[in-house]
């Protein structure tokens, strides 16, 4: 993990909404088209790769999000030590997938920040700057969408009822965080 100063270092509370950074976790981008790729990942991580659009699957330690027909995002629930640079998960996947040309494995841990938002007003906040229709998404646990929030590209993962993990590129996180705080004041 890069040793950087996160712009998000406190939990913010507004009416019916809590926002905080979901501390550094390992995020890995997976791309592949072959059927072997899907079965191989399923076997080695004991998780089923979602092939349905806008869905995800999870087990105790891992979440895997559908991004596109040949692209997935894998992220852990366990936090990594900030100053550590060892990614066992990446090494394991890299030797099993990339080295045998099944697909590609890219470590994007430092590329994305995750903001955890929970509370009844979660979707009110998102809807104030997002063109996506959340009506169905709200009630589907594990739903995933890539969309734009206040002109910034985000990935939204529905963790639980009224709890989401919002992925935003790290360079945009400060901007989006201040916009979210500003917007949440008026809910």
């Amino acid at each position: 993990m890069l040793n950087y100063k996160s712009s998000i270092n406190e939990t913010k509370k507004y009416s019916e909404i809590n926002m905080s950074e979901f501390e550094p976790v390992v995020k890995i981008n997976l791309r592949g088209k072959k059927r072997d790729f899907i079965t191989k990942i399923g076997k080695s991580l004991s998780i089923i790769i979602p092939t349905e659009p806008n869905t995800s699957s999870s087990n105790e330690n891992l979440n895997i999000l559908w991004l596109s027909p040949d692209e997935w995002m894998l992220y852990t629930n366990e936090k990594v030590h900030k100053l550590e640079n060892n990614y066992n998960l990446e090494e394991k996947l890299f030797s099993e997938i990339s080295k045998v040309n099944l697909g590609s494995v890219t470590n994007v841990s430092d590329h994305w920040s995750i903001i955890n938002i929970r509370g009844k007003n979660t979707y009110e906040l998102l809807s104030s700057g997002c063109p996506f229709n959340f009506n169905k998404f709200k009630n589907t646990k594990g739903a995933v969408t890539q969309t734009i929030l206040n002109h910034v590209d985000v990935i939204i993962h529905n963790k639980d009822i009224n709890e989401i993990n919002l992925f935003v590129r790290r360079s945009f996180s400060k901007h989006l965080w201040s916009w979210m705080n500003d917007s949440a004041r008026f809910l």
Partner: protein
Amino acid sequence: MFLINCPYCGERDQSEFSAGGEAHIVRPKQPTELSDDQWAEFLFMRKNIKGIQFERWNHAHGCRKWFNIVRDTRNDKIHAVYKMGEKPPIK
């Protein structure tokens, strides 16, 4: 503003997409044998009709996949959406 039914992700707002111009333009097989005029015709000349048009679009802020749509430029009504490499469902 209008909604586009992405063949991979489902219905999304137009602001998530970017337009990629006219679809089904075939690249000449032997570009070196063409005259400058013919080459310019292929590179630059695009239809801009009032009516039903075949277009390429990219879901830039979503799945980042390219696909084709058949759109009526008069009222932005989308008649068909189909994946790259597929034949247009209507003529």
